């Protein structure tokens, strides 16, 4: 096993990986940009190296700087987390070039799966079902428009190198096709440095269901069941659960095998995820393979009892998978809610500012994977995800209630968050029935606002009391100093709830 590794990430995922390392007696090196100098991952690690300017290209995306730090600190391996360099084949290659183990699949596999066009072609060959579309090389706008017309509307324009909804557009009519192609290309260019796009048929009533894979470097591949990730906004997941409410044992078996075959077809190693689109009739299509630890990995950990972050480290160190497919089982139900600094009432726009108060809920089977603290500044440099709240219960109904309780006790003040919004999604009758698709938010929460009824009376009373305590106490001091005969001087002896003012 490694003695020391570097974590090329920040936020909750860096914290998650450091904790796994600590349990395994592996020393950790954190990197941080200027604005993250007090961040939790910096506090927790054994060593923390300042990597400079907060702009991602100068810090968490800067391959030469990170490689240099890894060498200087004698790290034997690098864990990339998710996002940033996690799916960057050049980074993985730069690591292996200097004999540092990249904790993830080989660079070749990352490039292959990162090229969504090549990935689909390969999956078609491996007899994994794929969605009809244009994955061709003709990338000029007029060719793309022609191909788009052939597929028909609505269709999706997707960045070949994309992920997380970036560089993705749904096009409902021919009129908007040109504009959408150009804008997707631009966004993809700036986010991924590549403007290749592809087009595909837009599936009706689609669910996003993915399978977790673990593959060792000795040819063993297992799947750890599904995650239902249909609840999305701006094409990014906000609520994930497992098991999926529509999953049957038979379908799970079929899709699980397809996922394992997909992984074997590319020679996959380490933890990965095979994403499928599932339509209203439970037909499934391969969408893409994520060659990293997913944001939503904790729900799989809770329902299988398997620590994915630790297995990533063991696999990277060359250990064999001791888990056998037939020994694995899924028990109970887990949900993850992503807590974002964003305003759901205003197009989910990110909200920045200082977190004046952070207090996570504590209770049985509640897990908070967090990268925030009271006093922290949320900046516009990085993704606005603050933390992930995960709950586990015997069954889905109980678990929805537990999650609502936990969200109601999650205190994040100072920026606008999506907490109330998440609660309302969980409380929605169709969600409770499990009738969800990737359009759920658009269908039911399009013009959502936080308060239909304005400020509740309890909030008004609390504010008035707070202001009364805080403003007057200052005045009292002043009156006492200035006029010893002022009636206010008696105020000083007032006791509010037993506390001297």
């Amino acid at each position, binding site marked *: 096993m490694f003695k020391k590794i570097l974590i090329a990430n920040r936020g909750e995922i860096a914290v998650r990986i450091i904790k796994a390392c600590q349990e395994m007696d592996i020393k950790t090196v954190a990197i941080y940009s200027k604005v993250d100098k007090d961040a939790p991952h910096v506090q927790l690690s054994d060593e923390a190296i300042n990597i400079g300017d907060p702009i991602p290209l100068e810090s968490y995306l800067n391959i030469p700087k990170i490689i240099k730090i890894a060498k200087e600190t004698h790290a034997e391996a690098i864990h990339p987390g998710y996002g940033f360099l996690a799916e960057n084949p050049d980074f993985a290659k730069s690591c292996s070039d200097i004999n540092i183990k990249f904790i993830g699949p080989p660079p070749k596999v990352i490039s292959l799966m990162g090229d969504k066009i090549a990935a689909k072609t390969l999956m078609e060959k491996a007899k994994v079902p794929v969605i009809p579309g244009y994955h061709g090389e003709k990338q000029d706008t007029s060719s793309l428009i022609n191909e788009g017309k052939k597929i028909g509307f609505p269709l999706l324009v997707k960045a070949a190198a994309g992920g997380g909804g970036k560089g993705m557009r749904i096009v409902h009519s021919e009129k908007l096709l040109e504009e959408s192609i150009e*804008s997707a290309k631009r966004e993809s260019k700036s*986010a991924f440095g590549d403007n290749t796009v592809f087009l595909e048929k837009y599936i009706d009533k689609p669910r996003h269901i993915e399978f977790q894979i673990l593959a060792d470097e000795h040819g063993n591949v297992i799947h750890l069941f599904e995650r239902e990730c249909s609840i999305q906004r*701006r094409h990014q997941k906000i609520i994930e659960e497992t098991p999926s409410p529509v999953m049957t044992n038979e379908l799970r078996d079929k899709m699980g095998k397809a996922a394992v075959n997909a992984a074997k077809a590319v020679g996959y190693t380490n933890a990965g995820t095979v994403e499928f689109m599932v339509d209203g009739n439970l037909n499934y299509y391969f969408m893409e393979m994520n060659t990293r630890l997913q944001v939503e990995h904790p729900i799989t950990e809770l329902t299988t009892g398997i620590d994915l972050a630790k297995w990533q480290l063991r696999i990277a160190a060359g250990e064999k998978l001791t888990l056998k497919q037939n020994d694995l089982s899924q028990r109970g139900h887990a949900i993850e809610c992503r807590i974002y600094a964003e305003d759901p009432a205003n197009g989910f726009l990110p909200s*920045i500012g200082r977190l004046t108060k952070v207090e996570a809920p504590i209770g049985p089977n509640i897990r908070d994977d967090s990268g925030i603290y009271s006093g922290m500044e949320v900046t516009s440099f990085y993704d606005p995800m603050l933390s992930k709240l995960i709950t586990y219960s015997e069954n889905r109904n109980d678990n929805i209630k537990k999650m609502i309780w936990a969200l109601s006790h999650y205190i994040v*003040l*100072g920026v606008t968050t999506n907490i109330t919004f998440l*609660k309302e999604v969980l409380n929605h009758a169709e969600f409770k029935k499990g009738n969800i698709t990737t359009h759920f938010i658009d269908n039911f929460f399009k013009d959502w606002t936080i308060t239909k009824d*304005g400020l509740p009376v309890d909030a008004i009373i609390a504010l008035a009391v707070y202001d009364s305590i805080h*403003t007057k106490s200052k005045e009292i001091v002043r009156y006492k100093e200035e006029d010893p005969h002022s009636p206010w001087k008696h105020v000083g002896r007032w006791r509010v*709830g037993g506390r001297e003012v």
Partner: protein
Amino acid sequence: MFINYEHEDHVYNVTIERKNNHYFVTYDNTEYKVQAEEVKPGQLKIKIGDRIIKSIITEGEKEKFVFVEGQVFKVKPVELTSMKKRKKKDEGDLSSPISGKVVSINVKKGDLVKKDDVLMVIEAMKMEYLIRAPYDCKIKKVNFKEKDQIEIGQTTVEISKKED
């Protein structure tokens, strides 16, 4: 003590007086007699009849955040003397929804554009935000150029309704 709070374009007028161990809060012609304790900084336990309100309040730069019954409300205090006139958001207000970078400008001064045409593209956190024409209109002024940094609330493009 009179206080006005502004929340989502509404102003709430409140009076609070302290007498002995109680606070008397008057709002919307109703008086609430409450007992209160600040158990930790910003954390209030308020007894109202046999009901208890637990609330956490923190102060940001300009506003206060109130956590009560699992919900957060952002409230701005309003000066009594200068009651802020409620600015109705004009649908022709093309202020930037986000702080970011201008990646493209599709129009220039004098252009006539149709409703929903994209006027400007702003990028922040790797996402694009499109500024679209709210109605058929004429471009009066473009306030930014490509690659400019733009702050939230700044007016992107000034427009005038097309005269027929």
